[in-house]
Structure formats: structure tokens, C-alpha cells
């Protein structure tokens, strides 16, 4: 556990001082500014546009940071032989992976929080009344990033190519948002075209249902998000998926030879 915390803290500090995250924050600031300009074009709906664009791009920036980080962190340390100096110490390989993953997610979560703070500040200036639904939407976005980050880590270790891991993760990210539609298609057409629907069905079983966490798209629910989110199942699903990919990553990494 100590090794996990040390590695997580080390990753967090490294990411803080890393130019990449500075660029992500600067880019996010630019995008938030652009959202304000777009909001002006939406006149009466300025606040809604600012809300949607801001939340969307905060999530996107979190995704980029998490997927890029997860795809490259271990591979980069393998190339620079930093991993040799760690693994030749009494550190479990699974602890190493978990520490690096947690550190990365802490960094990404922190960056997302900073962006969200700036976003809420701008919204309040525009006359928006803060609603707890915003926090739910943000949490949903972060859980998506957590799940996708763990998947990216697994893909990086199994493909040993950062580019492959990035590409496959983005494809799965997209498919994950279409899962309700995929399930609907399978239900409607499965009996008539079993062979054609079989790959879709397989996909619907395996990839994470990211639409589950997409509370940004449900901010209009009159009852409010808190009433509609089965929080327990939600968190179990996210934790379960992260655990699956982290355990598989750990199994791969334990067998890895350098």
C-alpha cells in the first residue's frame, strides 16, 4: 500500500510539473472562452450553451489526459528504463501499476476540478443558479474517464503500442455511448438477422456502457438527476469495470519480460 501511495504521489507531482497538463489546462481555458462566444450567438439560451459546451469540453480534456497518460506512462518508463529501478526494488508489479494509474487519475481529476471551478464561476456570472445536478454530471464525466483510463492502460500493455491503445480506446469510447442504441437494434432485429447482429451483441456485452454515466445529456430531467441515478449500482459498475481492467493489466504486467 505504501508503494502504491508513493508511486501515486510521484505520478501526481510529475504530471503537475509536466508541460502536457499545462497545455491541457491552457487549451481548456481557450475552449471555455470559445464557449462564451458561442453562448452569445445563442441569445436567450446562452447559459444552456455555456453549460453544455463547458461540461462537454471538461470531459473531453479529462479523457484526453487520462487516455494519453494511461497509454504512455508505462511504455515511457519502460523505454527510459525508469521501470527497472522500480521493479528491482521490493515493489509488487501490481502495486506499480495501481500507483501509476491512481496518480494519473488524481492529476486528471484535479485538472477537471480546476476547469469546473472556472466554468461554474463563468456560469454564475451569467446569472446561472447553481444546481446539484452539475455535480452529478461532473461525477459522471469523471467516472467515464476512470473507466476509459483503466481500459487504455490495459490496451497499452497488451498492444505495447501507445498509438494502438489510443486508437482502440477512442473507438470503444464512441461505441460505449451508443450502447443503448446497439442493445435496441439487437432487440429489434436480432431474431430476423441473428448472424448479422451477433458481433453487435458481443460488443454490447463487453464494452463499458458509457451512456450510463452521461448525465451531462440528462440535465433536463425535471425530477433532477439525484432522483434518477441508481447511485449504488452506478458506482459498483464503474468500480467493477475499473477493477476488471486493472486486474487484467496487472496479470499482463506480471508476465511481462523486459
Amino acid at each position, binding site marked *: 500500500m505504501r*508503494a502504491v501511495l508513493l508511486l501515486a504521489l510521484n505520478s501526481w507531482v*510529475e504530471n503537475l510539473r509536466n508541460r502536457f497538463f499545462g497545455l491541457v489546462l491552457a487549451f481548456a481555458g481557450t475552449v471555455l472562452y470559445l464557449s462564451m462566444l458561442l453562448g452569445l450567438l445563442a441569445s436567450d439560451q446562452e447559459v444552456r450553451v455555456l453549460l453544455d459546451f463547458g461540461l462537454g469540453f471538461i470531459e473531453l480534456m479529462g479523457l484526453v489526459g487520462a487516455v494519453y497518460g494511461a497509454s504512455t506512462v508505462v511504455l515511457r518508463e519502460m523505454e*527510459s*528504463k525508469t521501470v*527497472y529501478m522500480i521493479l*528491482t526494488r*521490493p*515493489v509488487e508489479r501490481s502495486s506499480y501499476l495501481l500507483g501509476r494509474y491512481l496518480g494519473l487519475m488524481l492529476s486528471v481529476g484535479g485538472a477537471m476540478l480546476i476547469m469546473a471551478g472556472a466554468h461554474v464561476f463563468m456560469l454564475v456570472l451569467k446569472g446561472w443558479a447553481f444546481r446539484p445536478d452539475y455535480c452529478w454530471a461532473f461525477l459522471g464525466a469523471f467516472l467515464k474517464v476512470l473507466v476509459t483510463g483503466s481500459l487504455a492502460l490495459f490496451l497499452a500493455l497488451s498492444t505495447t503500442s501507445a498509438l494502438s491503445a489510443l486508437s482502440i480506446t477512442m473507438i470503444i469510447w464512441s461505441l460505449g455511448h451508443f450502447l443503448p442504441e446497439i442493445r435496441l437494434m439487437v432487440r429489434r432485429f436480432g431474431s430476423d438477422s441473428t448472424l448479422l447482429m451477433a458481433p453487435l451483441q458481443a460488443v454490447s456485452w463487453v464494452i463499458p456502457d458509457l451512456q450510463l454515466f452521461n448525465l451531462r445529456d440528462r440535465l433536463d430531467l425535471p425530477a433532477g438527476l439525484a432522483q434518477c441515478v441508481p447511485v449504488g449500482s452506478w458506482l459498483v459498475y464503474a468500480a467493477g469495470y475499473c477493477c476488471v481492467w486493472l486486474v487484467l493489466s496487472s496479470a499482463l504486467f506480471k508476465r511481462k*519480460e523486459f
Partner: protein
Amino acid sequence: MPDPNGPSASDGGAVLRFRDVTKTYVSSHLGRTRTVRGVSELDFEVRRGEVFGLLGLNGSGKTTTFKLALGLLSPTQGEVSVLGLRPRDPRALAGLGFLPELPWFPGFMTPQEILRFYGGLSGLPDAEIPGRVARVIERVGLGAAAGRRIAEFSKGMVQRVGLAQAILHDPALVVLDEPVSGLDPLAIKDFRDLLVELNAKGKTILVSSHSISELEKLCHRVGILKDGRLARVLQAQDWSGGLEERFIETVRPAGGAA
């Protein structure tokens, strides 16, 4: 110059032992499998308190041998033991220190931060770490630069930081891969003196280098690898005529110049 007789197996036992070790790499591409022998039937030991050098041409199996000793690779056949344990046993790793060739550290960190990090990973108690870090920094001659960032360091200074992290936790066996690679003559001398001092304090050292003269000055015994096999093990008195000649006559292909 080390004692030409060196410590014998009867004095303190083997710290590192290779018993008939073979390592074969298997790679497959588009259905075709390729097998490459890394090392074959390696059988030797490194005795407690000695400095053992590993010499060989590029591709002779030095790196493979090191990685087998460090647990970064597993033998296809045979057995490797470190301090009487499996290489990946945490107790073995706790008694091992490793300096990779051309170590890399994040430029924004100071030697103190780096050593605190690696000290924690080595399992040192938190209360002990600051004192040990300070002593090791002085020992490797970085006292004046302790608070400066790695980005400002010369190659020789980075190499010293690498050695510091390898000996911080007072390991019984120190493994050094090309420790003087890229260093100027003065830095080489300083480094050699450090290693002699370490050995005088009872550390067992396994070192590889392309610099034959350095091994000549440092080692009690030298093993020469050729095509993945341990072609010869020389005692210090065996190369009194010059280690280079012994090396060349061992590795030169039969019948002519290399």
C-alpha cells in the same frame, strides 16, 4: 587494485548463482515463429565480497544475464538465485541495488526528492530516509548539488545519482550496467574509487562494461561471454599480461580476425 585471489566460495558463499541457465526468446510475426537464444547453459556464481565483471561483444548476452539476475527476465531452463532466493522474491530485491545503463530521472526533480522516492520504495522507514539520503548524497560527491534540479546536471552527476539510488538501502549486491559509459576520464576515476570503497565495505558488485581497463582495475574475476555462452572466467592473476589480449583471444572467431 583488488586482491588477485579475491574472496573464495568457502569464505562467504555465493550471493548470485546461475545454474545451467538458458534463456530463449520466442517471437512470432504473421504466423512465423522465430527463436533466438539469449544465453545458453550459463553456470557461474558471484561470491560474497567480490567484484565480478562481465565482458563480451555486443549481443553476447550481457544484458540478458543482468536481467535474469534482476528478475526482469525468467530463465527458459535452469535456475537463478540471488542471496539464496528467487530473483523476484521481495527479500532478494531488498538486498539488491541496480544501476541501469544511462539512467534517466525527471529533470524537474532534485537528487533529494529522487532518493526520498526510491528510499520509500526500498522499504526504508520514513524516519530513516532523510538521514540516509543526506549520507549517500555526500558519499557519491553530490553534497554541493543536492538541492539543484537534475536538468542542470552533467552526465557524470546523473550517473552519481544513479549510483546513489542503487546503494541507498545498503544492499548486499550491487549490479551495475555500464556504469562509466559516456563519462570523462576524471569522472571515471571518481566512479571507480567509489566502487572500490563500496567493495572495501563488504558490498558484492556485479559490473559490466566495454571498458576493459576499468574492469582490469576493479574486478577480482571477469567472465567473458561469447554468443550467449560463458566462454571463460578469469581470475585477476590470469590477466596480469593484459585483460584485453585474453578477451580478444577468447571472442575472436576461430581461424581469423574478428
